[in-house]
């Protein structure tokens, strides 16, 4: 078969067998092409014989091709090289990649048995060395079978790039792949955009006559998803800064992000393209519907603000209506495109996903601060909770839980999308710790030395302020706690106590960060799990805020009633006097 066919087949094979890192997929893909490296000898012969093709073919190519690189010995060499080139990881990971590379290389030999026989001579494919097995029935390079296979693989490259945001172009680097996927997906997005704007998709247009609505509460497009998922009312440059290859990050995001302009006259336009810069401008306001139907503007966002990012993580109904109060220029990215980016597991994708996490964490922190500023009926006098310490510093950990935790972990919500191997990897990076009821797990200003997954029991998160404390959340089995301090490498901002006798999976900060910032499949899953945890925190805080706001309004109404009643009774008293 042709060289490009071998390269594509090997890449698809790496993708299908879950070679998670781009580097590993490249290794497997090129390993699948490696037996044809003997073509270099032909090229050298061409130069040696001053481009006399006949001489080069007869004296070198005919003798060399399929002799030295199409055999098991070469497969073994490829495996050894792949082992040392495999992306950073434990020995088991390297062995796996070496095995996949050897298999790809061996499959090249097999595919050449079936589909590679130059006319006039038979294919020779070796067993342990490159001699003498002939199959005269092999398809030649130009036979229709080989052509069909090549065309199907090439067509699949477009389809896969469009559907998954990744393609065999990855063999030539992340930028090449991002460029190719950007073109393929950009065309699809432009078509969708046209449909959305002419209303034929059943989706909403983005503006009204005077006040343009970007996101609308309880509104979904015809396919059940929010029409716009994330808008940066500025350029996405903030996500393109930082260490590493700026070009790769720009390509990763620029190929997917689109430019949006929302005007004042029911006109919305979206364009795609790499890093089209625009003047950050515009104002939007976000409003929510209060219990009872009253509208409340909860935020006014200016240039540089980001909104709608929650829909990147979890498709669902918008919780607020965001309206443009002036013309807005910004960048948008759809949920599907975001998923395509982060599934690439490149450095740019990790950074982008982390940026969204940091953004969500900031919003949760701001909401919590607002919540703590409001007095609540559940405030109680504070206990004496030690600060600045690690309460579990001397508590023994164990690699094995007191019950069969390994069988139990897959049932926890945190591990919902993890495979068995990935759960095992997370579990083996930490240790179990039993904590009795009332025991502190971490303390305010204590070091963020570990993140914890509640396996059994429950932990309560407590904020203490001015002699009062408030329980912010009770985290049951499958919930992650203490991870923000670990990710930000700072002290904890709240207390965590065992609500009841609990079993926790303690993941040391270093191991947690290593997995979280890695480029493996488990890393992507962990980042997604962290984001879901943040979303749950945000929803919980939002509910508490709404409850307190409603309570405050009811209290205010009662006070007003009492005042009116007092005034009424005062009048009666005055008349009697």
């Amino acid at each position, binding site marked *: 078969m042709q060289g490009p066919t071998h390269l594509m087949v090997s890449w698809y*094979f790496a993708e299908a067998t879950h070679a998670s890192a781009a580097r590993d997929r490249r290794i497997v893909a090129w390993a699948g092409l490696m037996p044809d490296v003997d073509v270099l000898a032909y090229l050298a012969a061409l130069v040696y014989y001053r481009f006399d093709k006949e001489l080069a073919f007869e004296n070198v190519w005919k003798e060399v091709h399929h002799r030295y690189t199409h055999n098991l010995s070469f497969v073994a060499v490829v495996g050894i090289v792949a082992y040392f080139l495999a992306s950073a990881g434990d020995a088991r990971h390297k062995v796996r990649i070496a095995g996949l590379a050897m298999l790809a290389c*061996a499959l090249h030999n*097999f595919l050449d048995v079936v589909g590679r026989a130059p006319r006039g001579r038979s294919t020779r494919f070796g*067993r342990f060395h490159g001699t003498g097995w002939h*199959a005269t*029935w092999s398809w030649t390079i130009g036979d229709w079978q080989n052509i069909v296979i090549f065309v*199907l693989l090439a067509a699949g490259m477009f389809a896969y790039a469009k559907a998954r945001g990744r393609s065999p172009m990855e063999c030539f680097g992340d930028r090449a792949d991002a460029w190719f996927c950007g073109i393929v997906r950009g065309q699809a997005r432009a078509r969708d955009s046209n449909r959305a704007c002419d209303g034929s998709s059943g989706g909403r247009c983005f503006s009204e006559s005077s006040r343009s609505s970007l996101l609308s509460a309880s509104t979904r497009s015809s396919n059940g998803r929010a029409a716009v998922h994330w808008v940066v009312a500025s350029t996405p440059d903030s996500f393109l800064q930082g260490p590493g290859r700026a070009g790769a990050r720009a390509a990763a995001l620029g190929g997917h992000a689109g430019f949006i302009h929302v005007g004042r006259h029911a006109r919305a336009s979206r364009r795609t393209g790499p890093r089209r810069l625009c003047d950050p401008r515009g104002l939007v306001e976000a409003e929510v519907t209060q219990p009872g139907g009253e509208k409340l503007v909860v935020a006014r966002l200016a240039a540089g603000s980001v909104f709608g990012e929650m829909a990147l993580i979890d498709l669902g109904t918008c919780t607020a209506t965001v309206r443009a109060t002036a013309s807005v220029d910004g960048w948008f990215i759809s949920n599907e495109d975001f998923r395509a980016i982060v599934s690439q597991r490149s450095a740019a994708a990790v950074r982008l996903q982390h940026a969204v996490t940091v953004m969500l964490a900031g919003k949760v922190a701001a909401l919590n601060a607002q919540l703590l500023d409001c007095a609540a009926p559940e405030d109680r006098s504070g206990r004496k909770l030690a600060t600045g310490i690690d309460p579990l510093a001397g508590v023994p950990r164990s690699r094995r839980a007191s019950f069969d935790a390994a069988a139990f972990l897959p049932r926890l919500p945190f591990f919902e999308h993890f495979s068995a191997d990935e759960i095992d990897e997370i579990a083996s990076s930490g240790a179990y710790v039993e904590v009795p009821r009332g025991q502190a797990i971490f303390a305010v200003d204590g070091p963020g030395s570990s993140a914890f997954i509640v396996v059994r029991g429950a932990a309560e998160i407590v904020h203490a302020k001015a002699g009062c404390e408030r329980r912010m959340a009770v985290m049951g089995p499958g919930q992650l706690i203490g991870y923000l301090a670990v990710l930000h490498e700072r002290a904890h901002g709240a207390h965590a106590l065992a609500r009841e006798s609990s079993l926790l999976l303690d993941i040391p900060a270093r191991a947690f960060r290593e997995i979280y910032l890695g480029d493996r499949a488990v890393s992507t899953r962990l980042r997604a799990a962290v984001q879901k945890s943040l979303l749950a925190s945000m929803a919980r805080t939002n509910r508490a805020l709404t409850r307190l706001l409603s309570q405050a309004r009811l209290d205010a109404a009662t006070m007003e009633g009492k005042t009116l009643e007092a005034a009424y009774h005062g009048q009666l008293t005055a008349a009697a006097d």
Partner: protein
Amino acid sequence: VSRLARAALWASSASGVFLAFAWPFVVSADPESAAFHAAAVATVIVFFASLAATLAARR
């Protein structure tokens, strides 16, 4: 479907390696045999079909 496709992919890969490197020793040294021809072509078809199915079923 996903599991089935993955199983078929691994099976056809193993089968391909067997046909390329072990068949001459274990079954027959004659590459022109109809059995080898049929097995090789069938393996190629199963390999590509299962590869496509596995990729299509990937989440």
